[in-house]
């Protein structure tokens, strides 16, 4: 049921991006504006991988913001994205998660569309002849051309599919920018991808909390025992925080070390387990891949809808699909490369135990996001404190900082006019 959200009056001190009002996580009016300005206008959203629909006629259901879409590959091999909503009387016509088809047929009255979204058939459009008269049909001035599905702009970047309801959005590569794009192309360099499977979770927190989580290099070495103990991610590592010029996208780049005790970064850290040893270490059987060129982990946030993960040998895209102001679906697509050998595939699958809704270093991210949302709900008037590493924005040469979060909110305030 739609309701009118509280009018937006935040007294948010100009450029105080180091303090974020709880209200931006709980206010329905703000959320509606976010959908409008981030998900439906001027931005590109992730909808899938080209490898998921390899053949002509293949399609899969996906989402842009709260709108269902269908991603399909036409007979010409071109990928198209249309909204999953019939032009006649609004039916969400596609109910199968994925498949192969020549046309989209709406079940209610069988209006049919080609994969590009053009209306190609309307039953009884010219009426039905009965004896000497013709019954009904659509008006003479009814034009198929003006009743197609809503078509989205599409860009495919090295196998990753992005779509936008806004056909005037700036080109995708410009939208992402060179700083972060460089790391995007480090993972997606055009090699053929091999989809390993999906994980899905519904997280009862505002969608931005997940963006923050992956722009927050402070928590991994503190919340995640495995990271700090085994040195996969901790404060004493050589890291780089990269951000695009507008502050919306980011890359957290780091290099694992050997873990173990360190007065600087493990003293008094309750999640650090000095004597922890695995009974079976195959889960952490890391093998360096040539294309890494150094970093063992790169976590990209492509605002507003995508996270790209490379954690040692585990790779995934993570799709953020908002579900109201206080929840979102988080869809993981794990992948490898078509030329991985069986050994490497097994390795990626084993390391997948660290990620997803049950993962050793990510199950608790969902938990803390849920607890944050509960905290915000308790006290409408307050604000979070994001002052680690100072109060300004931009990149950093280390991970002891919340600068990427501040950067995102700098951009956020600009677009949201808050």
């Amino acid at each position, binding site marked *: 049921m739609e309701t009118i959200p509280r009018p937006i009056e935040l007294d948010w001190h100009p450029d105080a991006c180091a303090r974020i009002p709880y209200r931006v996580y709980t206010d329905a009016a703000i959320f509606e504006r976010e959908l409008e300005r981030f998900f439906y206008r001027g931005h590109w959203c992730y909808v899938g991988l080209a490898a998921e629909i390899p053949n002509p006629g293949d399609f899969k259901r996906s989402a842009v913001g709260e709108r269902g879409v269908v991603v399909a590959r036409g007979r010409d091999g071109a990928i198209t994205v249309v909204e999953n909503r019939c032009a006649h009387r609004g039916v969400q016509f596609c109910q199968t998660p994925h498949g192969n088809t020549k046309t989209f047929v709406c079940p209610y009255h069988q209006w049919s569309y080609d994969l590009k979204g053009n209306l190609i058939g309307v039953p009884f459009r010219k009426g039905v002849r009965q004896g000497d008269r013709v019954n009904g049909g659509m008006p003479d001035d009814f034009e198929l051309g003006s009743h197609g599905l809503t078509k989205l702009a599409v860009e495919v970047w090295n196998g990753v599919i992005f779509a936008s309801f806004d056909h005037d959005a700036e080109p995708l590569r410009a939208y992402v920018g060179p700083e972060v794009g460089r790391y995007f192309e480090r993972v997606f360099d055009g090699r053929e991808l091999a989809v*390993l499977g999906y994980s899905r*979770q519904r997280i009862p927190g505002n969608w931005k909390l997940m963006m923050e989580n992956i722009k927050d290099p402070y928590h991994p070495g503190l919340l995640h025992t495995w990271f700090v103990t085994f040195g996969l991610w901790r404060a004493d590592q050589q890291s780089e925080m990269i951000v695009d010029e507008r502050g919306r996208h980011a890359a957290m780049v780091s290099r694992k070390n050997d873990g173990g005790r360190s007065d600087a970064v493990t003293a008094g850290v309750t999640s650090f387990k000095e004597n922890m040893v695995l*009974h079976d270490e195959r889960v952490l059987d890391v093998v360096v891949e040539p294309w890494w060129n150094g970093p063992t982990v790169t976590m990209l946030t492509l605002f507003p809808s995508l996270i790209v993960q490379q954690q040692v040998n585990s790779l995934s895209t993570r799709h953020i699909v908002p579900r109201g102001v206080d929840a979102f679906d988080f869809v993981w697509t794990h992948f490898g490369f078509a030329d991985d050998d069986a050994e490497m595939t097994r390795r990626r699958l084993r390391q997948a135990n660290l990620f997803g809704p049950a993962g050793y270093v990510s199950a608790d991210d969902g*938990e803390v996001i849920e607890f944050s949302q509960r905290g915000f709900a308790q006290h409408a008037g307050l604000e979070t404190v994001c002052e680690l590493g100072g109060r300004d924005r931009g990149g950093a040469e280390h991970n002891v900082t919340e600068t990427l979060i501040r950067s995102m909110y700098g951009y956020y305030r600009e677009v949201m006019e808050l």
Partner: protein
Amino acid sequence: MSAPPATAFVSVEDRLRVEELYARYACCLDDRRFEEWPELFTDECVYRVVPRENYDRGLPLATLSFESKGMLRDRVYAITETLFHEPYYTRHLVSGILVAPDGGGFRARANYLVVRTKAGALSELYNAGRYVDHIVEDAGTLRFKEKLCVFDSELIPNSLIYPI
């Protein structure tokens, strides 16, 4: 896995022993005696929790994928010591157990439902699916050599901490 052959080929005693294994499995998890959980498996074992979507489409990714009792013990350590989470009760309901002999052991499948209850909250339907298992005689008792939990509930309500 299509339905196994008639369990008529399994002796009444064996059938009841298999049923009991399932009962003990649920009992130790719901009582939160996690350390006992790996003991219900053989040393060399497979335990996988798999979204039905991946299973049906032949995609290899699992939500949890363990290949030895050691990995099971590492999971127990994680859920008791390292994975921060809001504690919850589980309640396993298991029915429709089908058993077929297989070499020295048995192939079995069953339907399950796990109910989750968090402190101060209402109980909720958490995870439903089927077990597809390989059970063997091991030191005079039955143990899981392979246990697959294929779950229908693909959209996990936030997190999955304890074994299914």
